[in-house]
């Protein structure tokens, strides 16, 4: 059942994005940015944690999860250290994704030949 939920939710989010992409002039860059901001907003409203409980990886593999992690890290930082914590904690939860993307991209592009 978990697997089906994950499939349906991730598919649903991608289908909505595809409808926006095909019917407006927005580029994929716009849509991913909007999804990230929506993730932060849903997290602010307290909805995103429920989505993760219900849909598991269906909610965490999406780019909106990035916004969710940024917001949660910022709030936890505020709880621990006040205003400074918003700045010093912002990336703690999403660090794995950002560092992973940078490191793998760099290593892989050193090895791979650029195509023409």
């Amino acid at each position, binding site marked *: 059942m978990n*697997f089906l939920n994950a499939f*349906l*939710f991730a598919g*649903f989010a991608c289908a909505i994005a595809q409808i926006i992409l095909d019917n407006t002039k927005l580029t994929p860059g716009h849509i991913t940015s909007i999804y*990230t901001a929506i993730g932060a907003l849903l997290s602010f409203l307290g909805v995103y944690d429920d989505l993760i409980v219900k849909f598991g990886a269906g909610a*965490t593999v999406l780019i909106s999860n990035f916004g969710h992690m940024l917001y949660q890290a910022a709030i936890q930082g505020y709880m621990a250290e006040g205003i400074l914590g918003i700045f010093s904690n912002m990336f703690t939860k999403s660090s794995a994704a950002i560092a*992973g993307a940078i490191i*793998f*991209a760099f290593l892989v*592009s050193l090895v791979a030949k650029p195509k023409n």
Partner: protein
Amino acid sequence: MTKEDYKKLVSKHTPREPKLRNIVVAFFVGGLIGFFGEFIIFMLQESFGMSKVIAGMWTALIIIAISSILTAFGFFDNWVNKCKCGLIIPTTGFAHSVTGSALDYKKDGLITGLGANIFKLAGSVILYGVISAFILAIVRVVIGV
């Protein structure tokens, strides 16, 4: 032939984007990635006894590593053209855009090319993610919890 006729002729022969098919493909590809993620989390929990949070982080890393490697081999660009949002909206799209820009600008040198352009596409996601998280955090602080 008047200009109007010519326009009609052009629009008749321009291939129309198969919108419905795009949506179905995006649904299935995105859904498969969600399914795949849930499967890896399940496997990591079962075989290594990881907590759900740790398993989720490893899963994100695995998905990012796979999409970076596939981008470097050149498979991913074709797939993104076909599946569009099915691959762009999941974390695969983030990893693809970072690796893609790194590869595209590598020819301009490691500093001025790769270094300066690696976040060319993914930068907007990080920027607006941080800005929206910051503003919402401030709002929550101001209105009190």
